[in-house]
């Protein structure tokens, strides 16, 4: 409709300009249309910001809030001489545990680690796990908990009589320091964080040297006219657009299957022999390495291209070889750009989920990874698994894990920005 009007307006202008009041009217109409669309453009911008806010608020909403708990045994009943469970010394705690669980289980605990060596916290934990046995009945979001507290308590009273309702932050220090558990109240992301760090370390070790090397080759050595070099360049641009899940399938077929002897650690005789297969940290790291390689190369090329050619010519003029010029002059001044690009690529790798599901992240790992040949899980995988569970409490765990992931990514990105600013200032003063 708007277009039609403009079309006729254009024809009029070509033929005969309206004059007088008609002209004035048209100007007013055009300006009105201009203002209306300006509002639409701003609304679009606002929609984007609202989406971002909704996303973040939704995660905060799920990370904190009231939960209703039913305990198998009320901790208050376990108090000894009026001293609550939380403050009892270790000896009392061991007695309580002995009184409430079977002798066989006690022997198993003793076998795993003698009670004499266990810490008070550890025994306290066991009591919570085996004796108190808290069960989450329901959870509420942060906003319900803040603004309609009354109805939260009323609902809990009505639907879960006898339950204990309290405010819980799902993101706590113990959430970060504890490993995975099938009990939502005791589950943590420790193994996932270690897994992510291991995988990313391998990703960087693999893709940074190769990516920078390729960028140097394409910018400093390659003759742009040669078909082979053009092919490499086009290929890199296309690789950057390949869906990440395809890389997962490449990793599954090559690293997990064909190179299984190497990626399972069997060729070194390390790795868990009973379950040795290629679904290890190193396979995941290499897969993500291939995934972010095009990003690192493209960013590296831009950084190297930005180095003024006078620098190179000065080097050549003093008789330096090609590599000397690159190593001593081009690379140092391109490094901030290369590092910034690398950090951004790494934050992409940290957030990747799909390729790692395909490569074969483990669904449940309670032990910290011990090296590149361990089975692994990573933060995004953990989030995915918790999200896929139907129970609300796992959604809350997923939200808390998302907060951990976002904080990690945010600090990485902030360091990239700081790095860039730092070097920019350094160059300005030099």
């Amino acid at each position, binding site marked *: 409709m708007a277009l039609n009007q403009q079309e006729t307006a254009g024809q009029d202008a070509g033929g005969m300009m309206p004059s007088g009041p008609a002209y004035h009217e048209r100007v007013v109409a055009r300006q009105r249309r201009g203002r209306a669309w300006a509002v639409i453009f701003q609304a679009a911008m606002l929609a984007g910001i609202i*989406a971002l806010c909704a996303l973040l608020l939704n995660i905060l909403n799920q990370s904190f809030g009231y939960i209703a708990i039913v305990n198998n045994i009320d901790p208050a009943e376990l108090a000894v001489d009026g001293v609550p469970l939380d403050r009892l010394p270790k000896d009392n705690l061991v007695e309580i545990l002995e009184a409430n669980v079977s002798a066989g289980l006690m022997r198993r605990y003793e076998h795993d680690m003698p009670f004499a060596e266990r810490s008070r916290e550890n025994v306290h934990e066991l009591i919570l796990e085996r004796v108190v046995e808290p069960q989450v009945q329901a959870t509420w979001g942060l906003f319900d908990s803040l603004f309609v507290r009354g109805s939260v308590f009323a609902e809990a009273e009505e639907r879960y009589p006898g339950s204990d309702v309290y405010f819980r932050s799902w993101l706590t220090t113990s959430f970060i320091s504890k490993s995975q558990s099938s009990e939502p109240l005791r589950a943590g992301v420790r193994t996932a964080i270690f897994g992510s760090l291991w995988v990313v370390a391998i990703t960087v070790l693999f893709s940074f040297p190769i990516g920078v090397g390729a960028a140097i080759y394409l910018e400093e050595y390659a003759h742009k006219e040669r078909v082979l070099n053009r092919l490499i360049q086009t290929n890199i641009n296309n690789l950057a657009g390949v869906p990440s899940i395809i890389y997962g399938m490449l990793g599954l077929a090559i690293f997990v299957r064909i190179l299984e002897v190497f990626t399972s650690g069997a060729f070194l005789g390390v790795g868990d022999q009973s379950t040795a297969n290629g679904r290890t940290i190193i396979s995941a790291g290499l897969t993500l390495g291939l995934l972010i390689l095009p990003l690192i190369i493209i960013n590296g090329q831009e950084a190297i291209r930005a180095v003024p050619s006078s620098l190179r010519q000065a080097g050549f003029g003093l008789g330096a070889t090609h590599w000397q010029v690159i190593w001593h002059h081009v690379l140092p001044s391109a490094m901030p750009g290369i590092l910034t690009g690398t950090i951004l690529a790494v934050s992409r790798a940290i*957030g990747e*989920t799909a390729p790692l599901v395909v490569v074969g992240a483990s669904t449940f790992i309670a032990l910290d990874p011990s090296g590149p040949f361990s089975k692994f899980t990573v933060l995004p995988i953990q989030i995915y698994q918790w999200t896929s569970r139907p129970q609300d409490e796992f959604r809350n765990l997923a939200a808390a894990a998302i907060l951990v992931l976002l904080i990690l990514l945010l600090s990485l990105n902030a360091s990239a920005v700081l790095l860039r600013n730092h070097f920019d200032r350094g160059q300005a003063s030099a």
Partner: protein
Amino acid sequence: MDLRRKPRVGESIIQGFLFLCGAISVLTTLGIVYILGRESVLFFASEEVNLLKFFGGTEWQPAIGRFGIWPLVTATLMASLIAMTVALPIGLCVAIYLSEYAPDRTRSILKPVLEILAGIPTVVYGYFALTFMTPLLRGILGRDVVEIYNTASAGIVIGILVIPLVSSMSEDALRAVPGTLRQASYGLGATRLETAVRIVLPAALSGVAAAFIVAISRAIGETMIVAIAAGAGPNFTFSPFRAAETMTGHIVRISGGDLSYDSIDYNSIFAIGLLLFLLTLSLNVLSQWIVRRFREEYE
């Protein structure tokens, strides 16, 4: 003193090594093509499958040997279509706003906001789709209309995910249009809107079109959002409010379980992968071709 160029072994070795680094990217592509191709050939060589059934069938039930790709394709296209109806108008409007309307200060604040949106991992978007968008849709349209898992909410959230992609690529294209064109337009009495929509946008059309196509390719290849929010189990349906599994979602679900090599399930995900790869690759190539072919050069 001999000043002739000396052969330097070290230099040649370094150059050779750097060339290898560049060649790894080509090897990656060859690897992808080889792996996807090989497993797909094995897939189509098995007795239960042939190309006609694959591209003609409307039922994907590996358990009973039905391998018709259409349920997965329709779900993929539906989610992408919904994503595009969200992302293209909003992304383009944002780009026009940032490039033609926003003052520099506002722009310098808003651009990082969009970059944050672009930097959030897709699994977080998947969580957002399932725990926010789906309840929202069910609240608005009714719980019996909208299933818990549905392509609509996944599609909308994919749309939000690709808004920054569309807007930043389009904005780059719009800003590359020289200011003299705008000045000339203003000089002839055009309003800001007329300048933006009838002068700058047509001049930047190739870049904007390329952005749109890349966005489509990104939406088709998007995995985690659909894996979490769109549902498990192929379903030949055209209703966006029903659960349906996309190509990427299917690959993730099948490979997430215990998958034995050389089974037809294993081969089948590579056949889907090959289709996905060809689809996204041709879209990406198309977008590059459009940029090259239709770019307006202003010197």
